[in-house]
């Protein structure tokens, strides 16, 4: 019997991309046959995937896709509730709307899993990725996307929109950016620093991507607030340091 939570898995980070409001409007028009993205979260997700330098490789390896968004297309939900006569497409209100849109954008025929876990969305998306990699998938692309809370919600929480894509693999490649170990249940990692994304459920994904892109070692708290009985963190290590 094991009274603790599971020990964290380890991935190789093949590529990482980010999008923030400072980067301008999400560019999703160049993404294959579907040229019109409907939800803001879907456009943000499509933007970071299009920017992945390994995108051509992904068409060959046919990875599993994990799309993580704690709130999904909340703007569509607010519109639906404020305008009861409006008939909205399912993608604009359902939690898996961004995943469905992303699959359509990329003509994805592999599995696309839509994951949400409140404050632990980043950690649990990495867990889902780990499960795929441990059971035979060559690589997994995890896309984190969280829009700002819609003004119609009138919620005092404020954070900026953010999207991150991480191309993860079980085995080492020649141009890996970093090793990512976690999620690990051992706490003690410093919280994501205050800033425009503090409070965003996927803020820790930005910290992971930035550390991987800079080749820095970092231990990152994954939770966005008090989410559950276990706190999760992840460690980013330069590949040279991480190889056992």
């Amino acid at each position, binding site marked *: 019997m094991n009274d*603790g939570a599971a020990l964290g898995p380890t991935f190789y980070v093949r590529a990482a991309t980010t999008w923030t409001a400072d980067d301008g409007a999400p560019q999703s028009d160049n993404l294959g046959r579907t040229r019109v993205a409907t939800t803001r979260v879907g456009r943000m997700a499509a933007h970071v995937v299009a920017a992945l330098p390994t995108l051509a490789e992904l068409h060959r390896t046919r990875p599993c896709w994990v799309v993580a968004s704690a*709130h999904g297309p909340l703007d569509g*939900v607010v519109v639906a509730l404020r305008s009861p006569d409006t*008939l909205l497409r399912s993608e604009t209100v359902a939690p898996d709307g961004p995943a469905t849109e992303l699959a359509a954008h990329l003509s994805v025929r592999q599995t696309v899993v*839509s994951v949400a876990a409140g404050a632990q969305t980043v950690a649990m*998306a990495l867990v889902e990725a780990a499960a795929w990699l441990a059971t035979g998938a060559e690589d997994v692309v995890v896309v984190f996307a969280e829009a700002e809370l819609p003004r119609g919600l009138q919620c005092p929480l404020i954070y900026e929109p953010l999207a991150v894509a991480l191309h993860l693999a079980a085995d080492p490649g020649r141009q890996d950016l970093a090793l990512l170990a976690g999620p690990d249940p051992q706490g003690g990692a410093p919280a994501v620093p205050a800033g425009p994304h503090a409070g965003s459920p996927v803020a820790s994904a930005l910290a992971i991507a930035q550390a991987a892109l800079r080749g820095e070692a970092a231990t990152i708290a994954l939770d966005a607030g008090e989410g559950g*009985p276990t706190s999760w963190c992840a460690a980013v290590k330069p590949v040279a340091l991480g190889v056992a």
Partner: protein
Amino acid sequence: MVATPITAYAACNALGDNADDILDALAAGRCGLAPVDETDGSTRHWGRANDPPVLPDAYAEYDSRAARLLGRVLGDLAEPVAVARQRWGSGRVALVLGVHGPDAGWLRGRDVPTSAEQLFARGPQGPMLFAQRVLGISGHAYCVSAEGAAGAAAIASGHRLIAAGLADAVVAGGVGVLSSVVDRAYTARRLLSAAPARPLSAARAGTSLGEGAAVVLLERQAEAFVELVGAAEAQETNAENTAPLQAMQSVLRKSGLEPAAVGFVQMLAPGTVTHDFTLTTAVRKCFGEAMPVSSLVGAAGWVVGAAGATELIVAAAALSRGSIPPTVGCDPVDGTLGVLPATSRRELEYDHAMVQATSLGGRSIALVVGARS
């Protein structure tokens, strides 16, 4: 992946407040759909579950109809989960819940959430956070969404967590509630029928929405009558819609089974002309003509979020009861579909059944459940 024992299951929907009542109602061919008049004068039929009790004060922050429905089934699962917690440790018991939102009643007429915790507790993940607390488990916990296939997707994820060594036991399933937002999303796609859904029937004209919750307890090792033998998934984005066939063939390969070993397919046939045709075409290509099939949509509705998990429970129970439940509303059966839905209960002498759950968004999950010797 190795087979995973299913040590307990629980469900509620328009057919009953617990799995036994639902299975008895299905076996008797009872229909739980009832007419609902919309303000615009249109009529549709919903499979509305009995109103569940309000959550206890200790869980008031999660209170929603979805959490209440889930709470009802978790009561039936509390004891086996306590045993699993004792056996594996609470940190090794995970939770994966399929949801199909939005259950957004909190956006209408209740206090605006003022903290991230409140926002999560009241949103689509609220029932998952509630379940984690009420079951006293601290392993990985998350929601997956895939419309009507969400519950099956959650069970597939749970199966993977155990296979990957990330959990030793998983509470997996789904919950879905009727809401005007969901109704309008389906109306926009012209998927709803004015009459009760009639899956696989020549007279089918659309689906009926339903609500409910369904969860199973998967364990790495335990005594159980049935087991989840395998799971596979595929995504569709083109008109040929080959994802259901891909998923079914893939799960047979993973399970090391020939098509002839499977006695019937419990399928999420919604009762729409196109989707029933697509799904049965896939079944025919995988198993040949005249494969026995069953769908519960005509009895309980398209139980958004909980549908795939409910279908798994029905399939598991069919193996233990030795009979395939009838497909309510399928008479007269559409003979051009090439499958064999039953208009009344039919004997089953096989050890394996398949569950086929495909979302209207194109995600397809196939699960194989088997009787344990």
